[in-house]
């Protein structure tokens, strides 16, 4: 994957988060506004195994290898985008 801007990373992350939180809340329905300030755990309902699945989807979505342990301290969408931005060499 070629160099992509932070804005493109953000758009892709939002799309993957929306997909993942639907999966996270199987059958229950889950409607939430996602912003950069959104907390993955308290706002979006992620837990540890869901984060692992999400990191696997990020790897596929961005075609990069990610060490899931690097993401254990990430709490917000903004931190996630910034981390990916740095991993993509921006």
């Amino acid at each position, binding site marked *: 994957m070629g160099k992509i801007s932070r804005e493109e990373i953000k758009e892709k992350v939002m799309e993957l988060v929306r997909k993942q939180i639907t*999966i996270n809340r*199987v*059958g229950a329905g889950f409607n939430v506004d996602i912003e950069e300030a959104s907390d993955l755990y308290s706002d979006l309902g992620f837990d*540890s*195994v869901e984060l*692992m*699945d999400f990191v*696997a*989807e990020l790897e596929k979505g961005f075609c990069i290898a990610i060490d899931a342990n690097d993401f254990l301290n990430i709490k917000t969408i903004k931190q996630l985008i910034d981390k990916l931005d740095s991993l993509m060499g921006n």
Partner: protein
Amino acid sequence: MNRWQYPKKEFVYVKRVLIKQTNAFGNVYFSNYLEWQGEARESLLLEHPNYKELFSQSNNLLMITHSIYNRFIKSAFFGMHINMHITSSLIQKYSFVLNFHFFDSKNELISAGWQKICFFDNSKNVFIPIPDIVLDLVEPIKKE
């Protein structure tokens, strides 16, 4: 060498309702459906010729029920045969979902639910990808 895979598109597990599974009103008491989900899940795992590898004490593997849900549509009573149809969905790297549909002998839906399952390595304290033995069972029964 081809890997063994479950040969059908869904797994069917049959229960017959016993008196001890009914409540004061004669209906099947709700908690039995959760117990039957567990029984059906184990029966599915036993279908794999190498199922013992999954439960070997030496591999430090824990199968975790992350979440479970069941809804109740029609009453069931003592003596009824209940056919549980199991399919899978939302198969990701670290977790998958099993879907349970309970039918009576007239093929009417009486209950439905799901479980989300993941796996943990107790020795390393980390979640691990779904083991191949489990994928052999859940991929063929994935609901399209």
